[in-house]
């Protein structure tokens, strides 16, 4: 069946009609008292991680600048780039949810910086991400589906270097700065927020203009190595981890165990990704801060499909599915539940389940 991913298209209309949009989703049972403890907020873990992150960025950038233009500066730029173009993705995400810190202004400050680095308008993307949580991988409703069907593999490869995402972000920034919104974004952002979208875009244009001016004035791309370009040369890690969130799994279902994936990762990737490798848990309970997701995973793992033990293992699972989807876009991977789990609601997911691996 041909899928129409437009938010204004045929599948969008069908999702609303069939009740798939804004539906009631499955949750593992966790008593309220325990869930409150999981949801509780604190500042300390995120303050520590933010000091490490910004401290590392400042140090790596300083070394990169000091060694510029020698090739010896390359490793420092590569590391700086990953923190700018990938770690900022997860900071954008967690602070957008408002769960990273307990203190609101801290969430907002990091959210604004991370949004700038990732070239995602902080107002627009707050709304688009809300839709991603309401209608996760519902075709025509979710604006954040990375691996559409059939999967645009070339597009994903280009995005390892930020080529499409960042360029689209900059093009959108210029559109917004001119006082206009794209019709799709206007479909999910309330009108009262439109002026905020435009204001942020104009501030960003001013920052990029100043950076470009310094580059021209000094006759060097060094200022762009610090601001802007790392969104391209450091994007690969967030794409590598992000693809695993939902790719190859079911669409149009209302159980995150069917459409999201939890993957065990090494500690460095988990720092960069701020524990979003616990992705089923995050979608089921988006109020739980990143630093409690491992504990939440332990608490509900008997109700979830087994996590992939590594990124390598996950890719060995995902890539053959994506390859097969090139020819058969209805094909997907259905992950088995342990005997201890509450079963999937087959009646609800009959249409999707028919094509499972």
């Amino acid at each position, binding site marked *: 069946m041909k899928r129409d991913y437009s938010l204004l298209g045929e599948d969008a209309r069908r999702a609303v009609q069939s009740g798939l949009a804004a539906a009631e989703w499955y949750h593992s049972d966790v008593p309220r008292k325990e869930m*409150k403890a999981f949801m*509780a907020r604190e500042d300390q873990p995120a303050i520590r991680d933010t000091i490490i992150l910004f401290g590392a960025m400042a140090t790596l950038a300083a070394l990169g600048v000091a060694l510029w233009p020698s090739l010896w500066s390359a490793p420092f730029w590569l590391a700086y780039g990953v923190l700018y173009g990938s770690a900022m993705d997860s900071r954008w995400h967690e602070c957008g*949810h408002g*769960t990273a810190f307990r203190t*609101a202004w801290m969430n907002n400050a990091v959210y604004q910086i991370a949004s700038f680095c990732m070239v995602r308008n902080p107002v627009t993307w707050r*709304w688009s991400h809300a839709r991603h949580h309401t209608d996760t991988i519902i075709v025509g409703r979710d604006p954040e589906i990375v691996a559409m069907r059939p999967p645009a593999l070339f597009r994903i490869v280009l995005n390892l270097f930020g080529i499409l995402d960042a360029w689209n972000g900059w093009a959108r920034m210029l559109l917004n700065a001119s006082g206009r919104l794209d019709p799709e974004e206007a479909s999910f952002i309330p009108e009262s*927020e439109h002026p905020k979208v435009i204001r942020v875009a104009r501030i960003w244009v001013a920052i990029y203009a100043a950076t470009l001016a310094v580059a021209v004035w000094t006759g060097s791309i060094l200022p762009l190595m610090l601001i802007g370009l790392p969104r391209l040369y450091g994007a690969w890690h967030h794409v590598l981890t992000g693809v695993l969130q939902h790719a190859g799994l079911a669409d149009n279902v209302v159980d995150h165990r069917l459409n999201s994936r939890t993957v065990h990762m090494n500690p460095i990737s988990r720092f960069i990704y701020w524990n979003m490798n616990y992705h089923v848990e995050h979608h089921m309970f*988006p*109020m739980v801060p990143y630093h409690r997701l491992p504990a939440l995973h332990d608490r509900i793992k008997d109700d979830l499909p087994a996590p992939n033990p590594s990124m390598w293992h996950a890719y060995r699972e995902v890539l053959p599915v994506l390859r097969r989807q090139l020819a058969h876009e209805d094909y997907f991977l259905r992950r088995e539940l342990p005997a201890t789990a509450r079963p999937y609601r087959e009646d609800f997911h009959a249409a999707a389940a028919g094509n499972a691996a």
Partner: protein
Amino acid sequence: MTDWIDACGAEDVDAEDVIRFDHGGRTYAIYRSPEDDYFCTDGLCTHEQVHLADGLVMDHLIECPKHNGQFDYRTGEAMRAPVCVNLRTYPAKVEGGRVLIGVAS
């Protein structure tokens, strides 16, 4: 005219917490603040009709479990996107260890 409806026992709600109360085809949320004052609002978030009683109370804010929108539950004021529309509030009082909420009759 306000009808005072018996919603729950005062001890049924923990301090800095919320519970759900359904009555007359509507759903309400009953809050107990850290200072042991009681408040009542509509039970569903104004963004996407999600039960706020599954959310998190922090000081005088209720955070919605779906997209982390926040309201001040004392006034119903929408405090954090994606909520933009204020929440309706109802008077609440404690009498004889019971929480009563005031609903227009």
